[in-house]
């Protein structure tokens, strides 16, 4: 049934619909309402939401819940996730299917989300919904991908996504069958010689010492596979575009609107939106850049995703920034850039080759 639901509530409901039965979090704007909705809804669904005493404990509790085979999630905003980084990288090596809800302040956490701030070689799938409707779909996909790859998946939203109400259907989506979680601890194999060990440092039962080289290379092979199979992008009007605009998340909604308007007026503008920030849809961006005079990157930060766009375009066309830092007084990311006329005017200027001028 279609209902008017705020993003944070839709996310919590979609997660529970996907089978999430454990959540732990620590309040922080603009993530707070996600926690509130999990706290309100999980007990009624037979689940548990723990009000953790810090982000460190929130991620730790989620780790323990995941180890038992439960679908479990945590979240925060960039600052809180900075605190969790040690666990985020270690959980990746423990191959636990974590889902993280990141409600960022603007788009300045692109590097944190796609590169991570933890130790060692690791990767997280990062899904950036453009609106509440897509957030409902991607939240359910996140739990499926996490279980399929036994790897953390992040839903990367922002203040606007968490606090915008939209009319959505929250119905369970169908996914392919998943392998059984025979790795999960339940105590049942104690004393049989086959007890389990969920271990992020490569130690196995009965073995002497560890083989870090083989352990890390096996994880790298998995991440290579994810990189090949999971990139997702939305592409519009790129076949004959002189200018291709690349944007993600809430800001892409403004870009998509402006590009459609300009196309209606006969201007040759195209649009590519990475839905997965990692793996970055480099092929889709490279194809879109074929024949374009320039590629304009619209992002609300000092220039982060532009690195990935440049690596994808590889000199086929000049890649120019048309976004920038844009903050409200509170610092939560609702800056003046989030304005259809402003976005339209920046795209028009880039099309005319004067993207730097006011």
């Amino acid at each position: 049934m279609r209902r008017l639901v705020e993003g944070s509530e839709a996310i919590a409901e979609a997660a529970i619909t996907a089978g999430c039965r454990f959540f732990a979090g620590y309040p922080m704007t603009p993530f707070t309402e996600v926690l509130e909705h999990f706290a309100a809804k999980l007990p009624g669904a037979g689940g548990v939401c723990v009000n953790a005493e810090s982000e460190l404990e929130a991620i730790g509790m989620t780790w323990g819940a995941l180890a038992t085979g439960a679908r479990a999630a945590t979240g925060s905003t960039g600052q809180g996730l900075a605190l969790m980084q040690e666990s985020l990288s270690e959980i990746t090596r423990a191959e636990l299917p974590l889902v993280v809800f990141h409600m960022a302040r603007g788009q300045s956490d692109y590097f944190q989300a796609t590169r991570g701030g933890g130790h060692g070689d690791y990767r997280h799938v990062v899904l950036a919904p453009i609106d509440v409707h897509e957030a409902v779909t991607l939240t359910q996909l996140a739990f499926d991908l996490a279980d399929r790859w036994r790897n953390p998946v992040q839903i990367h939203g922002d203040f606007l996504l968490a606090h915008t109400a939209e009319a959505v259907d929250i119905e369970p989506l169908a996914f392919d069958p998943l392998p059984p979680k025979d790795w999960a601890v339940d105590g049942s194999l104690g004393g049989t010689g086959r007890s389990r060990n969920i271990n992020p440092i490569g130690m196995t039962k009965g073995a002497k010492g560890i083989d870090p080289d083989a352990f890390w290379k096996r994880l790298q092979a998995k991440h290579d596979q994810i990189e090949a199979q999971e990139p997702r992008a939305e592409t519009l009007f790129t076949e004959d575009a002189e200018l291709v605009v690349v944007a993600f998340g809430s800001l892409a909604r403004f870009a998509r609107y402006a590009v459609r308007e300009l196309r209606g007026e006969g201007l040759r503008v195209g649009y590519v939106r990475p839905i997965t920030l990692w793996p970055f849809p480099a092929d889709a961006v490279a194809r879109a850049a074929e024949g374009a005079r320039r590629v304009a990157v619209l992002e609300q930060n000092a220039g982060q995703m532009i690195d990935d766009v440049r690596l994808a375009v590889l000199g086929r066309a000049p890649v120019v920034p048309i976004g920038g830092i844009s903050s409200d007084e509170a610092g939560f990311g609702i800056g003046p850039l989030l304005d259809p006329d402003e976005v339209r005017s920046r795209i028009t200027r880039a099309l005319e080759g004067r993207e730097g001028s006011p």
Partner: protein
Amino acid sequence: MTRRPPALSTDAPPEEPARRMGRIKPALLLHEDHDLCPGCGEPLAMRILLEVIEELGQSQNAIGVVGIGCYTAFTSTMDVDLVQALHGRAPSVATGAKRMRPESLIFTLQGDGDMVSEGLQEVIHTAARGEAVTCVLLNNGVFGETGGHMTATTVLGQRTKNSLDGRDAAYHGHPILIGDLLAQLGGTGYAARGSVHDAAGVVKTKNLVRRAFESQLQGRGFSFVEILTMCPTGWFVPTADGPGYLDRVLGAVHATGELRNGDRLTTTAELVASALPETGEETPR
């Protein structure tokens, strides 16, 4: 309870290397070598844990969450379902596991650097929440794995690699009596401190671990057992002096006994006072 074969005779030098547990190997141990230094107290603590799990009929119901320290090596030898946690973070990991599996016996295994230095807030909040898990602290007063450095439980005067002239209260601060902090919290059902410096201590400690696990299984909230263990390598004392040093130096401050059993509360200060000889003469403990 299963019947145990008699302990090895100590009348003569052992015929086997000391690191082998030989005929008294617990059923839940995958192989006999413990891989730690000669004279280490942690394998004794592990043996206690594994024996109690088996004796309580919990072999197929126990889940351990192991921190980072020398005892991390046990994750390859303990035949119990395990989750390896980060340094300091085992209590929150145990919390998440227990909330999803309330019927399981869930315990953590942490050292003093792990639980009291790095992870102090985790264990305190877990106790305050009354999580029905058992946190087991192996306390030797040093970071053994890094080579004998000061922790939050290092006693005053104790020499470590980064308190070479002994821990000085004015310069290094005071040791934390973690058992007292935890015993006072409303969510705690059981808290006790034992020591494995001699055979009697091992037997007493085993009783404390059993009561802590029983407390968890009876749903009496958070339970805690601290086990004082030898670390001759980290203390820079001859291996044979380890047990005596543990009893004399750490045991005098982190006195053994029950700190909480249901509503019965004791403090470490009271345990120290009750252990003091009344006449001033040396009384064997």
